[in-house]
């Protein structure tokens, strides 16, 4: 699974940057075509949902998707599956 921000919905409030325990969301620095600064994703493959959603059969954590007031955060299927090397610091 792949974590994505839907740029057509995000309004750039940066609430997602405040809740992720891995600090995957970082404040962006570039205006998109709608004039909104969308957060950047810092190594999103560290999110447990990207790695383990299939294994557990349910959504884990999900705090960013719940707090996003504009329903812009979601996980997408990856096809073909791209292998990632994931380093998780404790």
């Amino acid at each position, binding site marked *: 699974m792949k974590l994505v921000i839907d740029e057509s919905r995000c309004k750039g409030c940066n*609430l997602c940057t405040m*809740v992720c325990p891995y600090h995957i969301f970082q404040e962006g620095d570039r205006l998109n075509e709608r004039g909104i600064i969308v957060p950047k994703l810092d190594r999103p493959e560290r999110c447990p949902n990207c790695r383990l959603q299939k294994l557990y059969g349910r959504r884990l954590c999900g705090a960013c998707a719940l707090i996003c007031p504009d329903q812009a955060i979601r996980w997408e299927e990856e096809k073909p599956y791209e292998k990632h090397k994931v380093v998780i610091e404790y």
Partner: protein
Amino acid sequence: MTFMDWYREDRLPHIYCTGCGNGTVINCTLEAVEQMGWAVDDTVFISGIGCSSRAPGYIKTDSLHTTHGRALAFATGVKLANPRLNVVVFTGDGDLAAIGGNHFIHACRRNVDLTVVCMNNMIYGMTGGQGSPCTPVGAISTTTPYGAVEPVFDLSELAVTAGANYVARWTSYHVKELTKAVKDGLETPGFSFIEALTQCPTAYGRRNKLRQVSDMINYMRTNVILIQKKQRMLERGEAVPEEKIPVGEFVRRNRPAMGVPK
């Protein structure tokens, strides 16, 4: 299935301002409804007037967008006419406490089997930032340009006193706790009241030196205190700082309820 399946995606993005907490509260409510496993056809969302009350328009189920403050009156009617429906009410502090105040206390007294989610942003956001019964003392609004002087309505305490079966308060920062509280409310027969403090950066924050969304979130994060902790502090005779907002589960009880399907 996730809460996204309950949204009318053709209507998104919604009209709420950047960083408005109402979207978060809708997410949490829909997540709780989703966890209950309810069917779209058996669920009704009802709202009055205000920013919060635009919520049912973005949800797939049947909904009623009613007159100002009267959401609970319509909801009582829907529930008593067909007790098999699951009725959830979205409302705001102005809608519920000011204009619909009487409906609120009597819905609590009758203990009708409803779940009410109140998005308390402490101001009338949609009509331009007038002070509401929940505007904190000292806060600036368009009707209190020198700072609000009136004492504040504590909606959760009011619901406890008026007789609701389940009362909880959380904020739009505490998404997991809020989801759990809404789910507990949906499970409890009788009147369930969940107050969600939300940030309103446009009408409230802009006038009260909380212009950034993160300022309002930090205000809520640092100023809440768990109600059990507050009670422990009171028992030990310690002073609880004035500005602390108690959050958590206020009451869960089993008074006789109306409109529960037999």
